[in-house]
């Protein structure tokens, strides 16, 4: 009797810690945020009144929301395309016989270990208008001091550089692991057939790591949607520049929740954000299933 109970209950006890944590830090905040988003909710005084979907209705007609969404998308593109391309190149370089492999792997991952606040502070100084290193270098070529925060394109570029710096090495290691799982015989067969290095890379390596490529794109997109610290510290305040030219979605959420105390509206933004992430994750799941199925 006890043994049967043991067999029935014990497995649940073993998995319980995860579900308890998930319920506390995952489900409960989600549910509560959903509940808040249906109210006019003041951060300090709490619920003012039930307002149904009014927050969402306002959000979908709010030009500042679309501005933040566009900025987020733009920074994502500017940061992800060069980042993944560079990661692919680095992985290809590392995927050959190298002396001191582990040291190289470690070095590539190093930028990812630096706390993001430190990264943001250092890069913001590098891009400083008056004393910045980048400005200083540009003046060698006769350029005038440049205000990186003042223009949308340059601000997006500045923020993207931080993201690239932090995540390129991490993605390179993911690609490297995937590349090493591509059967060596395929490479050798292609080489025997007289394919060039570039051709082997294009026709053997790239198709072989397709699921990983897709995975990194989706993970970068989810990370890009949640971009906050880098742009927040790049400028002054949560507005992302004087014309909100680099305000991301999470910064807009923060501005509403913690600077204007409109917790209900901030909750609605975070649910839309959650929905966007969920859509991306499901797209990823579907595509991976298809790719792997075909492979």
């Amino acid at each position, binding site marked *: 009797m006890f043994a049967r109970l043991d067999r029935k209950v014990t497995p649940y006890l073993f998995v319980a810690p995860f579900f308890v944590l998930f319920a506390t830090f995952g489900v409960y905040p989600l549910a509560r945020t959903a509940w808040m988003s249906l109210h006019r909710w003041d951060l300090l005084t709490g619920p003012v009144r039930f307002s149904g979907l009014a927050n969402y209705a306002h959000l979908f007609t709010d030009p500042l929301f679309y501005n933040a969404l566009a900025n987020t998308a733009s920074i994502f593109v500017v940061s992800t395309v060069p980042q993944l391309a560079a990661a692919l190149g680095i992985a290809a370089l590392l995927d050959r016989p190298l002396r001191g492999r582990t040291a190289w792997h470690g070095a590539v991952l190093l930028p990812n270990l630096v706390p993001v606040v430190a990264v943001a502070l250092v890069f913001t*100084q590098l891009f400083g*208008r008056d*004393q910045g290193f980048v400005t200083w270098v540009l003046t060698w070529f006769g350029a005038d001091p440049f205000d990186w925060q003042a223009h949308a394109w340059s601000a997006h570029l500045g923020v993207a550089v931080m993201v690239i710096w932090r995540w390129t090495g991490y993605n390179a290691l993911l690609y490297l692991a995937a590349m090493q799982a591509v059967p060596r015989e395929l490479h050798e067969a292609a080489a025997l057939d007289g394919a060039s290095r570039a051709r082997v890379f294009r026709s053997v390596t790239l198709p072989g790591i397709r699921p990983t490529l897709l995975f990194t794109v989706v993970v970068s997109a989810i990370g890009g949607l949640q971009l906050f610290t880098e742009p927040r510290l790049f400028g002054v305040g949560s507005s992302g520049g004087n014309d909100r030219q680099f305000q991301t979605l999470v910064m807009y959420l923060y501005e509403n929740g913690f600077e204007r105390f409109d917790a209900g509206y901030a909750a609605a933004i975070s649910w839309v954000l959650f929905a966007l992430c969920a859509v991306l994750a499901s797209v990823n799941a579907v595509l991976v299933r298809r790719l792997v199925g075909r492979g």
Partner: protein
Amino acid sequence: MRRSYRPLWLVTALVLVAGCGGGTSGDGRLRLTVATFGEFGYESLFEEYERAHPGVDVVGRVADFDAHHKGLITALATGNGAADVVAVEEQYMPRLRESTAGFADLAKFGASGLRDRWAPWKWEQGVADDGKVVLGLGTDMGGLAMCYRRDLFERAGLPTDRDAVAALWPTWEQYAEVADRFARDAPGAAFVDSVRSIYTAVLNQAGESYFARAGDSFIADTNPNVKRAFDIAGALGASGRTAKVNTFTQPWNVAINQGGFATLTCPAWMLAQIKDAGGPANSGKWDVTAIPGGGGNWGGSYLTVPAQGAHQREAYQLAEWLTAPEQQRKLFVDDGILPSQPEVYRDPVVLEHKDPYFSDAPVGRLFAASSDTIRPNYRGVRDADVRPVFGRALGRVEEGSQSIDQAWEQAVREARDAVR
């Protein structure tokens, strides 16, 4: 007292959230935490208080302006984590007055009897419900003066004597003319730090800004004070008279240190910030004189006792002691923190006080003299929703991306949307 954005706020906010909470110290004494921001100069007073109250251990916690207030709001929203005594800057008071439940009503400890200590307007800003609820006890105030660099003025061939400088600019229009002269004769340095500090100073000299004193209605689009401050500051920005460095940012500190601009609107608490950023090397280069357009007030704080604290009575006693006239007098003489109590700012010790860092400027007389004429700016409950909109608009003018008219038009539109 007011110290704005510092990039480390994220770190400090985390530390704040993690490290809050009162209780008992290891040796059985009652521990009271006091959270402040910027420069309050309280450390030596804490020791004095502990000597007089052997059963109390006072722990100070200092953050920058942003981190401090964000930490307080988080603590109020979640119901725990606030210090026993928390400083609140005046611009946050209208909003916090709306949620009095988060704070102990100091009237129940007898605070109402202290009313006559403060200038009437200072007291009024700290109370709610027609004065029945006392939210906070006033600390300092931000009487306005103008700081200027004697060395840069000399280079531009301008007078350096503080009375002669004051005579140059009785009005802001004349101040702008001096700026033009300075730009012509002393290229290389800007005349003032940023459009925002000029804008804030001009606006703080008016009685009303974004919201009407009567009925709290939105008047930013029609109030001539706002447009006037916007135009004066915007014109300085558009003609490149500003160093384009926002107050309290790292580039601002550097500009102070290297003499990047010649004048700075100086609420009393700004002196400590200049000393901080300028360091000993710049001692004697600055001076203080009267501000164009007459006196005004910019900033100043209150000590509050959050209702979540376990030792509210003891916290109140500490706050009461910290804001008592003897301590206010000491804070001014030691740290230049301008008292908000007439009895103190009319005290000869305060009036005679000179500051060697600022070329022996008679700061006591300068600030105290304007204290009696202060007409504090009325702040609406939703002030914080509107204020940044105009700041950003002026920033666009300063960057050169918009004309004054374009920026104004967009600001008014955004401000209307924000208060909808």
